Structure formats: C-alpha cells, structure tokens
C-alpha cells in the first residue's frame, strides 16, 4: 500500500493572530509553524500502516520554501519521502488540483488529509481532491481499518458516529480520534538525522484555477469586561441571562 499524507503548514495553536500590509496579509512575524494538528493524527496513523502493514508513506505539501522545515519534521517522524509543490497555497481549490497531480504521478492507494487546516479552516481540500480524482472519500474520519482493498472507516457525525464500508483508492479527511493522543510522536535525534538523507522533491505547480481570493482581514472587536456575579446571588445570573442576554 502506498500512502500520501497531505500536510498543511500552519501557525502553532497558541499563535497570536495579526495582519499586516494594510490588513491584506497574515503577519508571520514571530509565528511558529507546525504540522496541522489534523494532519499530525493522519501522519501517525500512516506510521501505523507502515509498521504493521508495510506501507510506503510519502508526504506532500503545497507551499513556498519556508514550508520545508515542517515537512522535514514529517520525514523525521518517519515518512519515507516528501514532495513540495512550489506555490503559495492561497486557495483550497488550487491546492486540491496540485495535490491531484501529485497523486496521479505517484500512484497512491490511500490519501490521508485532515478535516481542516487550523489557519484558514477551509475544510475543502480533501473533498475536492477526491472528486477531481473520482475516488472514494470519507470525511471527519476517526478510525480507519484496511484489509487488502476493503476499508472500514468511522466518521464523526453530529451527535455520534457512523461506520462506513468502502475500498481503496480512498481519500480521508482525518482528525483527532484517528490515533490515541498518546501515540503522537515527537521527532527524536535519530529521526532528524535520517530525515536529512531522505528525498525532498520540489516540483513546480501545474496551471490551475484559483477560485477564491482573500482581499482583506480583520480582527474581532475586543471583548467587553466580564460581569461577575456573586456565588451567593445566583438569581442575579439567571436574571441577566433572561433579561439582558435573552438566552434563557
């Protein structure tokens, strides 16, 4: 089985978000970039398939040279090879078209992407990718079992979960649950050394449409101060929720 894990390079979850150039760009100053958490769960599941089912695992990212440290990290965690499509990932449709080309050239059986990138929260790359390739797709995937071509996947739904039977080739949009939190790996020294010798292939983008374009950013209005209610005076909270906030 040949697996491609799609990795989106995103600001660490604790990052302060600011915009620059007249609020037209995300300000990367002082921001640390990491593997998108949803992709980290997927990469860890891919490592399981590598170790238990002898899968070959490649990772791909669509991004500029500055995204290389993030995919190096994926190599250090254990991926065999990396591909970087040299283009700015400004639009999900564009990214999906680039990844579709990578998949066609690499002949992958399983493509593991994340439910969403935590930066632009598009939640669209895996679904568009699967549709462009005309292959199966399971979103918000929290469990994935593969027995030759037969796949059993579980997806999270509103209020519960759903088990799905499908087959390879397949794209998933993975998330927390796909592996145990405690199984997530931090690259060790040996992994980091080995990663230096692994191939990181840079390919140029294909011609593709960009369907969307962010023209301006804005930060939310600063929040007013919290209204504190004395623990001895719970009626006051109920009154505020009823008469002021009008939510009960």
């Amino acid at each position, binding site marked *: 089985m040949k697996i491609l894990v799609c990795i989106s390079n995103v600001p660490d*979850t604790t990052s302060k978000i600011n915009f620059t150039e007249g609020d037209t760009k995300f300000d990367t100053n002082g921001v640390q970039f990491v593997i998108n958490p949803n992709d980290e769960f997927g990469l860890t599941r891919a490592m399981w398939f590598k170790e238990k089912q002898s899968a070959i695992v490649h990772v791909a990212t669509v991004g500029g040279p500055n995204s290389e440290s993030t995919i190096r990290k994926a190599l250090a965690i254990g991926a065999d090879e990396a591909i970087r499509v040299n283009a700015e990932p400004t639009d999900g449709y564009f990214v999906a078209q680039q990844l579709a080309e990578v998949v066609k050239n690499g002949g992958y059986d399983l493509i593991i992407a994340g439910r969403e990138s935590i930066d632009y929260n598009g939640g669209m790359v895996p679904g568009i990718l699967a549709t462009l390739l005309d292959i199966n797709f399971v979103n918000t995937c929290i469990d994935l079992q593969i027995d030759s071509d037969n796949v059993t996947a579980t997806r999270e739904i*509103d*209020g519960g979960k759903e088990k799905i039977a499908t087959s390879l080739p397949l794209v998933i949009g993975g998330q927390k649950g796909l592996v145990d939190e405690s199984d997530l790996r931090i690259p060790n020294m040996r992994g980091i050394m080995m990663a230096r010798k692994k191939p990181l292939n840079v390919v140029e983008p294909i011609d593709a449409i960009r369907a969307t374009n962010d023209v301006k950013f804005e930060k939310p209005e600063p929040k007013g101060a919290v209204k504190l209610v004395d623990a001895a005076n719970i009626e006051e909270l109920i009154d505020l*929720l009823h008469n002021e906030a009008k939510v009960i």
Partner: protein
Amino acid sequence: MSVLVYTESDNGKFKKNALEVASYASEVAKQLSTNVTAISINATENDSLGAYGVTKILNVNNDQLKTFNAKAYANVISEAVKSEEAQVIIVSSSSDTKYLAPILAAKLSAGYVSNVVAIPESTSPFLVKRTVFSNKGFAYTQITTNIKVVGVSSNSFGLVENSGTAQIEDFNPAINDSDFSTKSIEIDKVVGKATIADADIVVSGGRGLKSPENWGMVEELANVLGAATACSKPVSDMGWRPHSEHVGQTGKPVASNLYIAIGISGAIQHLAGVSASKTKVVINIDPEAPFFKAADYGIVGDAFEVVPKLIEKLKEFKAQNA
C-alpha cells in the same frame, strides 16, 4: 440566475440550520433581484419553507437516499443547480453538509467558501465575510468562479420569517450506483437529545470537575436548560466523556446562543472553538482563570457548590416562566 439553497432534513423534518440557510438565501436573492429555490431530500414538511423566503422547492423522494451519502447527495444538488441554472448555492455548516459541499464544488468547478458569517458584502465582485484562524480573525473573500458555493456558519444569521408560500415540485434526478461505493453500515447516534451542532445552549465541563462521576450535575443542568453537554479536550482524552463531546480547535466547534463552561481554564485552543457562541458564562474557582477574559458573565466559586444551586434556581425560574 437564481439562488439555490440546500435545506437539510432529518427523518423528514427540516433542521433548524435549514431554516437559517433558507433565510440567508432569501436575503442573497434580494441582493441579486432573483428568487430562491430550495432542494430538499426526503423532506416531508416542505410547506414550512415558504415562510423563510423560498418560492420554489425541488423535492426529491427516493429510498436510495434514505441514509445520508455525501457523493449521492452532492450529485442530486448538482443536478438541481443545473436544472435551475443557479449561480449561487447556499449550504449550512452541519457535518453532513461540510462533507458534501467540497464534492459539490468540485463537480461544478465552483469556488466554495465555508464559515461565512454575514450576507455578501457585494455580489459583483462576489465578496463574503468568513471566520479564519479558528475565530481569531475574519477574512473578506472574493469568489471568482461563475458558480459559487457559500457555507453559512451555524447561528450567524438567524431565522427570518415572512408570510410567503412556496410551490413544490417533484425532482427526480438519476442516482448513480457508483456513488454508493462508500456505504453506511452502522450509525450510532444519541436520539432525543440536543447535539452540540444544533443546540441553542451548550453546558460544558472541564478537568476542574475532577472525575467522571461528577458529571451528574452537568447533565442535570443541561437537562433543565434543554442543552447539549460538551467537555474540554483532556476530559475526553482521559475517557471521562465520549470523544464526540470534545469541543475546541481540535474538537467540535460550538456556535450556540449560550455556552456555560464549568471548571474549564480557558486555554487558547479551547476558546478558539467556542468563541463563536453569543453569550459565554464561566464558573471557575480561580479568579485568574483565562476564561474570565473571554466570558460575558462569570461566577468565581466552587463548581460543586455553585452548580447545584444554579440547577435549583433555574428549576424555580422555569416553573415560574413555564
């Protein structure tokens, strides 16, 4: 050019988000001086949609579509888009719809923008406001393709009623057997209980509650309020509560009218996922807990004393206001 809205139903009944996206679509149709057509699948109460601005409903009745299937549903909606020559398609943010929307967009070579929180700033160019960076910012995003798919954030627009009626037409697109190469084999879902996705009120507990046995009072509070229950990430990691209750940046997003956080510190990743809620209440023993900076109302106190009292007073309040 018309506006098409996908109105999602559950067991024949429209979900609240269906009425919200219908309201939104009707506002967009006004901007474009056109009408709204809804596409519904196996819905039984279609006449209710007229009151939210829909003038025509394409209703699909098909046993093959009894259980949700993203590809088959996307295909049906895409056929409706073609038959209506729709250029703007409005969808919700439920998990099923977030599953099918990218498939639909790719089928139609359409740009798709999710998490949209307001009616379009302008329709030419087509510019929408959406949340980005897990609610830490907004982007104004232009969709440049001919056909546009707009995913509306839950609870961001609300319901707008009017006195219209809709004309209902049967719609019978061909269903491809190949769409069922992903097949639902088992659904495990709480029934008769509000879910985090569509509850007006969510009551959430954190590590401050100390052990799973103490969730009785969280559930009782939720019961009194008709609320869904949720939890912080460590609580689900430790197995105190099911994973499906974990909310935050890496869990389920919450966009309820009221979010009550009990014994939750308010870590940045937690707040990112719940900050779209309109009113936030925090109950925490530590006045320095970061959640107090993000909340509208707060009580500094021991949850084990405050919550039982809150339940008792709410019961009295409900009895008086029933």
